[in-house]
């Protein structure tokens, strides 16, 4: 077993597992955020729960942070190894003749997502930690919705979010189907998995985009 995770296949399996874990997280995150579009109170209730439940705060949140860090560090390691495996590049290389653009540029879409994550942490996570654990302000279960729409008043931020979601989409279209291949799923399912991969990879980021734009336009004048 020790050998497994020191091998090329083992690293890809670890990559796929962390990717699938992030996909599960992303789905959960989306399902909570979308409630903000139709119900302020449900969104506040769910956010309050996620922000104050000790299981979420002290067990799931650290696991998530480790998962994200593992995924992008491993992404950089794999990319570095892969570049090393061809020290002299081709003068002409027609990747478009045999593979998808998104599959050849996971590191690019990944780096954009990583920069977005930095912004996102600065926007929501840092103030949240400051509120709860540094300033130790009294909890107001109704503050979350206000904080959310306040963030989406700024057109530059909304623009940056939407741009990042496009890259997230590019990452996921290949990422989801690729992870099942890494995990050894029988290829008789690949056509259906590819369809799910497209639907999820376009649907979820488009949904996040919609949420950002919705709040921007709904509160445009206020």
């Amino acid at each position, binding site marked *: *077993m020790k050998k*497994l995770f020191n*091998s090329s296949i083992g690293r890809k399996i670890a990559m796929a597992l962390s990717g699938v874990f992030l996909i599960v997280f992303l789905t959960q995150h989306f399902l909570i955020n979308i409630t903000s579009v139709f119900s302020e109170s449900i969104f506040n209730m769910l956010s309050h729960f996620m922000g104050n439940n000790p299981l979420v705060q002290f067990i799931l949140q650290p696991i998530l942070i480790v998962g994200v860090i593992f995924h992008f560090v491993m992404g950089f390691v794999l990319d570095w190894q892969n570049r*090393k*495996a061809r020290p002299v590049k081709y003068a002409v290389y027609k990747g478009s*003749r045999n593979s*998808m653009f998104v599959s050849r540029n996971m590191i690019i879409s990944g780096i954009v997502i990583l920069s977005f994550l930095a912004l996102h942490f600065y926007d929501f996570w840092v103030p949240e930690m400051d509120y709860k654990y540094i300033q130790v302000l009294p909890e107001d279960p109704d503050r979350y919705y206000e904080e959310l729409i306040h963030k989406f008043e700024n057109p530059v931020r909304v623009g940056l979010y939407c741009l990042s979601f496009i890259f997230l989409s590019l990452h996921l279209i290949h990422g989801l189907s690729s992870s099942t291949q890494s995990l050894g799923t029988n290829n008789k399912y690949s056509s259906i998995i590819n369809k799910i991969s497209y639907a999820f990879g376009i649907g979820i980021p488009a949904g996040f985009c919609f949420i950002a734009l919705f709040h921007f336009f709904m509160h445009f004048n206020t």
Partner: protein
Amino acid sequence: MKLYLKIWRQKNNKSKGSMIDYEIDNISPDMSFLEMMDVLNEKIIEENGDPVAFDHDCREGICGSCSMFINGEPHGPDKLITTCQLHMRKFKDGDTIYIEPFRAKAFPIIKDLVVDRSAFDRIQQSGGFISINTSGNTLDANTIPIEKENADKAFDAATCIGCGACVASCKNSSAMLFVSAKVSQFSLLPQGKVEATDRVLNMVNQMDEEGFGNCTNTGACHVECPKGISLDYIAKLNREYVKANIKK
């Protein structure tokens, strides 16, 4: 046809190579790509130059030696063929053709377009066989019933000619398609099952030691493979490798 060729020239493994321009005229569209290279080399020899070194043997798509990377793809623009099966009618008069060696750290250049693919031999030697006594008392293979589906899959995998186009086309120079074919052709059959665990562990281990890249599942390999080896074998290799690790 008149053609403008840009060919990678490199004296030996130590020297630095570069793309050199050649012009060639009166090429018939019915010539194979290697025949066109022969004509070029005759011309170079007449001019007292050093002919372009390239690999070839059978010239009928079965040995896997011919290995050029032509206009950005291994074995050129056509699919499901090797370079020796590529014909000049795939090109137009006045075309510029880039001809490069297969590039990978694990395939060091010997000279010009000739690369050393013995990394594949070492992977094979690490487990790509079955240990059977062949000294006269072998059983007829047909005495063991094998389901048609697995027999077909094993045969498909066994059509791999070890050409290395999968490595050449992969953006990561990964050898996963080759290894997956060589592992599967045995593990799908009863005779190969006996040593399946050690085989997959040893072959993947050797593959990693040779310095091939990791698989990103871009699928370039199976599109460029002259034998159309399916990506399915890579998923199967991943499954077998995990199972073998759990067993050991």
